[in-house]
């Protein structure tokens, strides 16, 4: 049985190769699209899991919210708003201040967290750690880095990282999340505040003058706010905006909408890539399978001469088409995986990952290939069986 199958497949070697190329194209383009989708979805999931608050103003915030300083008094006021479960002070700074803050989602950021407060984000109760551990309350001069950051800087657990002239021990590396935290350096908020002061001469001067009533705990670029069970996130966010003065509150659904509109170009690109991949790959596959059936028109004529009924012939053709498209599809997936691994291996040197071969992509592509292959074979078979056996033999001669 296996020998017969192998022999049959050998007869279809070029067809299988043709299908494999088409499927590899679909999978590779799909994997790039998946990668971008995961990035956008990750950001969306993050902003929908918390209420992001910054001080009123502009220019200070560098994270998910733009705004001014968020003093500790504002953080206390937010915590007292009905519906609020917890407030975590945060400091987000660009690792390299000379880099534009425009592409916040892709630049390397230092994120300072108040480790005394559990993560309020409902979708990220904790960051997934691949190696080592996450930060604990009381840690100082310790850092956890994102997977891309670790790769591009050659960092691992136990290694050292110098930030603003101070050495930090790497205690953990995050799993690859394919979204913004992949490029984060996460440190205790006290250390982030020290870096902020070191980075910002104006702030340093203001603090040194004593003319500004600021304490270390006032140096926050924002806060992540969690809401109680049963509360509606947008309603709690609006309540904070009403009751706490001098803050910029991001309404989660509005921020999500903003994020999606800002990534609309990528979304359109994805749709384009997907449609192109399906049309080009699909047409190539359907054409290859149909051509393979038409190429064997003489064989089908002979089989009908020997007494094959339309049903028997159809079953044989569809069975072969199934085996051929499955084999070609699996080969194509393998080729795409190899290609993706090679390209990603090269891109990993700069902390990049271009492909995401998700289960839904691989399964969907295989199912699509098989369905299309069988449909193309079915169409070709219907055309073939309409011919008389003599005509099929004549045309195939």
């Amino acid at each position, binding site marked *: 049985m296996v020998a017969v199958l192998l*022999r*049959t497949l*050998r*007869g279809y070697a070029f067809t299988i190769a043709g299908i494999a190329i088409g499927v590899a194209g679909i999978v590779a383009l799909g994997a790039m699209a998946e990668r971008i989708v995961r990035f956008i979805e990750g950001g969306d999931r993050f902003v929908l899991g918390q209420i992001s608050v910054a001080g009123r103003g502009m220019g200070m915030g560098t994270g998910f919210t733009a705004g001014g300083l968020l003093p500790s008094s504002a953080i206390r006021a937010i915590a007292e708003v009905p519906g609020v479960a917890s407030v975590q002070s945060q400091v987000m700074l660009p690792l390299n201040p000379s880099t534009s803050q425009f592409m916040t989602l892709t630049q390397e950021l230092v994120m300072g967290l108040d480790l005394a407060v559990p993560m309020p984000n409902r979708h990220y109760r904790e960051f997934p750690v691949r190696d080592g551990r996450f930060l604990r309350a009381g840690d100082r001069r310790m850092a956890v880095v994102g997977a891309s950051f670790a790769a591009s800087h050659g960092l691992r657990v136990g290694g050292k990282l110098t930030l603003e002239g101070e050495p930090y021990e790497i205690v953990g590396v995050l799993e690859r999340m394919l979204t913004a935290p992949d490029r984060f350096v996460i440190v205790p908020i006290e250390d982030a505040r020290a870096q902020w002061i070191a980075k910002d001469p104006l702030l340093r001067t203001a603090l040194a003058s004593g003319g500004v009533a600021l304490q270390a705990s006032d140096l926050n670029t924002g806060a992540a706010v969690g809401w109680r069970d049963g509360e509606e996130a947008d309603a709690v966010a609006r309540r904070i905006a009403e009751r706490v003065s001098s803050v910029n509150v991001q309404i989660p659904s509005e921020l999500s909408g903003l994020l999606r509109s800002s990534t609309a170009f990528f979304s359109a690109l994805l749709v384009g890539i997907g449609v192109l991949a399906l049309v080009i790959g699909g047409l190539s596959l359907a054409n290859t399978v149909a051509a393979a059936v038409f190429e064997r028109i*003489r*064989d089908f004529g*002979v*089989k*009908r*001469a*020997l*007494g*094959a*009924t*339309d*049903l*028997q012939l159809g079953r044989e053709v569809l069975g072969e088409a199934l085996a051929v498209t499955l084999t070609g599809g699996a080969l194509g997936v393998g080729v795409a995986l190899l290609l993706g691994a090679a390209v990603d291996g090269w891109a990993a040197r700069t902390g990049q990952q271009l492909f995401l071969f998700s289960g839904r992509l691989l399964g969907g592509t295989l199912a699509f290939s098989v369905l299309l292959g069988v449909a193309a074979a079915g169409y070709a078979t219907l055309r073939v069986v309409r011919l*008389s*056996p*003599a*005509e099929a*033999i004549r045309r195939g*001669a």
Partner: protein
Amino acid sequence: MLEARRLVKTYRAPSGAPIRVLDSVDLVVPAGRLAVVLGPSGCGKSTLLNVLGLLEDADGGDVVWEGERVSALGRVARSRARARSVGFVFQSFLLLPSLTALDNVLLAGRYAGRTGPEARHRARELLARFGVLERQDHYPPQLSGGEQQRVAFCRAVLNDPPLLLADEPTGNLDDANGRVILEALRARARGGGAVVVVSHRADAVEMADDVYRMHLGRLDAEPVPAGGQG
């Protein structure tokens, strides 16, 4: 017995003009007889064979096998009738290149419901009888023309059909191999089959029980030459 009654078949030329290739053709080939049809290229010999074997529909007339008007059957019934009652031998052998010699022979059994050890045994027996058993695992391109035609003959008779139709069965063979095939066809007729052969070969005519000549779509009986009837 094979019988054709007033068969009519018309093709359209590329210009649209009708070409009548079978013009009220009558033919009777009783069991145990070998009929040879002669005629120039394009006279309709192959069309006649195709219509007799239900490989092609006639525009009019009837084909009767073993007393059954098979030309009136539906598609499925025709396929089953072909599998059960008729064997074909073609000039270009028409073996499936993806199958071994043995599997090509067994293919005829598959559509007639004859599979399994008994069919394999009979296929090997036939291959041995025609001297190609040692080639049973070879693919058609690995066989000579004579070997391919012998395998094709084994396929045609695997199901022991009462009718055997051969279209220029020796056209691509040398004299020795052609002789083997013609003798096999003759033996088939002697064994009780009704055999129709379209051929140009003089030795085919020598083996014929009945000889017909096709001309302008008409089929006329000719006297069997001296030395005929095997």
